[in-house]
């Protein structure tokens, strides 16, 4: 199947888009990455996802698939010759789906609360407690799901690894900018170890944004209306990685992905994350 048969509409900082990219990587599926300009919704996006108007959207031949977790399951259902993403046992699948829904409906909103919304010490303190409580649950879930392996999926990364792991970069940014410790080795030793394994997995490492670039992205969006166009030209054509630490493989010339020239990533008006942001799923 040629590259153009599978397209992914998205943006490099989005954890939800990352889910789709990891899943495609696991299955070794070639795809064309069509990057949305942050802060703006293209005609293409509005047509592809008229209900939510959000990324990611997978365009497979003429079919449109929206919502990141639904996309991951779709990828798993279509490309059956590659490694499985969901567990094979129905009960294990139910557990993975339960925790993925929990992460999206409860846990990640509490993380975002710290980074963007919480103002004043009380709200921040509450948000931190919520995040910590969630991580405690996930630490326990890891022990049960991993069955001694390095991942929620056992020996290989799977659905729940993707569901949670996509937020690791944002967790690090939140820790850095909020001057807080969220993923604490003392409280969640297994998750910390898992985070390292996840980030260095072959399907993940090329699509996980560097903390510095994500922080920059966050600051651009959060603070001013200043144009960062000078800096943003360095981001042209997915060369983000070439400016980052050498731990990332600069595989822009890889056979697998063709990337549209990346438009300047700074929005002309920096908006905070909530509702009209195209990043959220």
């Amino acid at each position: 199947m040629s590259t153009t048969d599978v397209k992914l509409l998205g943006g490099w900082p989005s954890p939800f888009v990352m889910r789709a990219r990891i899943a495609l990587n696991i299955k070794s599926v070639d795809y064309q990455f069509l990057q949305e300009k942050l802060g703006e919704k293209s005609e293409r996006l509005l047509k592809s996802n008229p209900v939510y108007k959000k990324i990611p959207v997978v365009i497979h031949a003429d079919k449109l698939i929206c919502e990141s977790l639904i996309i991951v399951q779709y990828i798993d259902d279509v490309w059956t010759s590659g490694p499985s993403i969901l567990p094979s046992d129905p009960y294990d699948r139910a557990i993975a789906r339960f925790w993925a829904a929990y992460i999206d409906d409860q846990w990640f909103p509490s993380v975002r609360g710290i980074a963007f919304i919480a103002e004043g010490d009380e709200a921040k303190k509450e948000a931190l407690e919520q995040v910590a409580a969630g991580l405690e649950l996930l630490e326990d879930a890891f022990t049960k799901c991993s069955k001694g392996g390095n991942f929620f999926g056992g020996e290989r990364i799977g659905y729940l690894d993707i569901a949670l792991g996509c937020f690791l970069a944002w967790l690090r940014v939140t820790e850095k900018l909020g001057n807080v410790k969220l993923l604490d080795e003392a409280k969640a030793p297994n998750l910390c170890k898992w985070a390292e394994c996840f980030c260095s997995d072959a399907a993940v490492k090329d699509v996980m944004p560097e903390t510095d670039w994500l922080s920059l992205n966050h600051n651009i969006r959060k603070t001013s209306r200043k144009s960062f166009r000078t800096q943003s030209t360095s981001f042209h054509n997915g060369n983000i990685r070439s400016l980052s630490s050498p731990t990332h493989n600069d595989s822009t010339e890889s056979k697998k992905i063709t990337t549209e020239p990346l438009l300047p990533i700074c929005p002309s008006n920096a908006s905070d994350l909530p509702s009209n942001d195209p990043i959220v799923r």
Partner: protein
Amino acid sequence: MAEEVKLFRTWSSPFPLRIVWALKLKGIEYETILEDLQNKSSLLLQYNPVHKKVPVLLHNGKPILESLVILEYIEETWKQHPLLPEDPFEKATARFWARFNDEELLPSIWNASTKQGKEQEEAIVQVEENLKYVEEELKGNVFFGGETIGYLDLAFGWLANLVSVLEEVTGLSLTASGKFPLLSAWMQNFSDAPVIKECWPPRDKLIIRYQAMIEKYTAVAAPK
């Protein structure tokens, strides 16, 4: 080993009703454990410590939580009377609209029922937008599942009786307006299907219940 299937539910909540329908459609024997959410049982809290909610499906002692997750579990465990399409794209589409129901449609109908003044007007506009999508998704079929009831019919199923209850309690006209003829026809067909019909909670009790709930919500929200 004999199958042991138990379902924790309440008499009125639409989410466990999805599971009742699925189990009946597949012909699975199960035991009902009725919960009072004002006084949750220790078993419920043990099996669902994270959300403390119904439904909980217990299969040979293992708890499965969240109604849409439970539906998929039932589908994958008992293969008779398939509820989801086989085609991956159709499956993804069904999952998408089921989530849409839970995240957008249901909350919008609840908003329209409980808000007042301008907020209510805006909520009604949102409901109509959402219902338009649902009407389109029927694609002229009798059911969302095609010729027979499927996963998405079960996800949307609550509409077929609760919307008219809310309309009666609030005086609103949401689907009764006649603006959504395909959806209205579906509501009738779904409601009349034997397996579905025999499970509806008593309407008069539902009216009383939702009247009280809406009064409580509007009293809390009312400007002083």
